[in-house]
């Protein structure tokens, strides 16, 4: 069964067609890279998959289940987690509180108005474990504002991984990182077990090339090229879009 299938998905803002009848089929355990220049509609495609935006036409299917009409918050419980290109975390809370909130999002406990959140040892323990997974356990009790950009990026990934997603969507996880930080994040992403299907957006083709098995090139909202890494890199259209030849 396919992990994630997008069928003839379209979305326009006013007169601007941002997603133009996109088809996408991602198999379980696959590592898919979606690349394209600025304004290609990559993030919009993610927003359509996660439910932050409603498509004008087309369907989204998760492990055979049509989720096109499922509200975004509910899709998380069906196994989709994402990170954001522009980091959106809770800056005045500690790292461990940030990850705890992420875990709480998938727990029934989130409706509980009488328990003490700080007293939920199991939940907080899992949050610390998730931070350890991205190598940040030593900063767990530090407020987020006192961490570096690269560290926040890893907190984002820790939050997404903590939710134990079946499909993980990474929106430009390398944007704004130094070369060294990129290597750390790439290593981290490469270490994610195969039971998690990963779809990654990147603007810059070189960075994430090693990671991808299959690559989809998006341009003006359309899928222009799709195939294995070698096929896509060699394709004349890819060269045209990226090098302007």
């Amino acid at each position, binding site marked *: 069964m396919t992990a994630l299938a997008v069928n003839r998905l379209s979305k326009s803002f006013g007169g601007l067609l941002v997603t133009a009848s996109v088809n996408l089929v991602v198999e379980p355990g696959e590592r898919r890279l979606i690349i394209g220049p600025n304004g290609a509609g990559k993030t919009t495609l993610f927003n359509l998959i996660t439910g*932050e935006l409603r498509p004008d036409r087309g369907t989204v299917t998760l492990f055979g289940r049509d989720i096109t009409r499922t509200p975004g*918050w509910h899709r998380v419980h069906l196994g989709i987690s*994402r990170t*954001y290109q522009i980091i*959106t975390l809770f800056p005045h809370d500690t790292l461990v509180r940030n990850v705890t909130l992420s875990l709480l999002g998938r727990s029934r406990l*989130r409706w509980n108005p*009488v328990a*003490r*959140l700080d007293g939920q040892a199991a939940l907080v323990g899992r949050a610390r474990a998730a931070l350890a997974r991205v190598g940040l356990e030593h900063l767990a009790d530090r407020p987020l504002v006192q961490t570096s950009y690269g560290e926040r990026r890893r907190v984002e990934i820790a939050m997404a991984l903590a939710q134990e997603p079946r499909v993980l969507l990474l929106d430009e996880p390398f944007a704004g990182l130094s070369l060294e930080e990129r290597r750390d994040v790439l290593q981290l992403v490469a270490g994610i077990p195969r039971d998690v299907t990963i779809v990654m957006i990147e603007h810059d083709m070189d960075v994430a090339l090693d990671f991808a098995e299959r690559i989809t090139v998006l341009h003006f909202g359309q899928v222009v090229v799709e195939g294995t890494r070698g096929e896509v890199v060699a394709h004349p259209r890819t060269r045209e879009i990226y090098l302007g030849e």
Partner: protein
Amino acid sequence: MKRLALAAALVLLAALPFWAGGSFYINIASQILLYAIFALGLNVLVGYGGLVSLGHAGLFGIAAYSAARLLAAGHGHLAAIAGALTLALLAAALFAALALRGTGIGFVMITLAIGQIVWGVAYRWISITNGDNGITVGSRPQLFGLSLAAPARFYWATLLVFLVALASMQMLVASPFGASLRGTRDQPRRMAALGYHVWMIRFLAFLFSGFWSGIAGLLFLYYNQFVSPQAVALTASAEVLLMVISGGSGTLLGPVVGAGLVVVVKNVASAYIERWNFVLGAIFVAIVIFMPEGLVPGVVGLWRRATARTPSRDLVGVVEPGKEAGR
């Protein structure tokens, strides 16, 4: 140390009728407490939910009017209180369903409109509300067989309810649901992407807020033994909002301090100056300029800066003033 201060404050509050010096002051204390409950209820939405309501006097008034009507129809106090709270909760659910179609300024405008509708009904639907003349209530209820007619007794009953309200607020803020609510205030999109049903969280917070507004409305009714359209006017909604903001929204004690400020200025300044609203306005302007986060976070911040002179302690205590004050 903290426990000691808390115990001392409790003893001081409980003994207030003995040291306050007369029923005039005891009554002012009762007013402060009942408005503090109202402000605490509104603070759930404004401070923790990031949703500014300008129609909360509507909920406050619906509870007061309902109880007054039920009492006038010959029902007992218990039935009147239960009926009034049920109606206030139903009204809160309806208000929330309408107002939560928007956030930010949209939410403000819808709550403002609903509040004005309630005021219009109170003012014009004379067969039910008795219009401008209001409704008078014959007696105060009894608590544990004790009459609440005397100012001190009523004060103690109000204090009891106030402490329960305060404890429930503290519990909510520290709970997983409280963390969810604050999350929807700061990053609603992110919270949805983490699996939180943002609308439902806000809806439940509105109900909780409406419940305590209703309780405050009941105390208001029994305190004055009278309710009129003034209780549900826009100025009443604005006043309680100013209590929350001036004291410090999103803190536990801010709304209480704000309620104290407004009630005291109202009662003291009005004895000397006819235009006491002017004094209150000037105070609000000063607060906004010098302590934009409100009195409680502002004073806590000043105190921190004054005590944390040594650099080592400064490093430890790097906390946003507004984040710590309420805990």
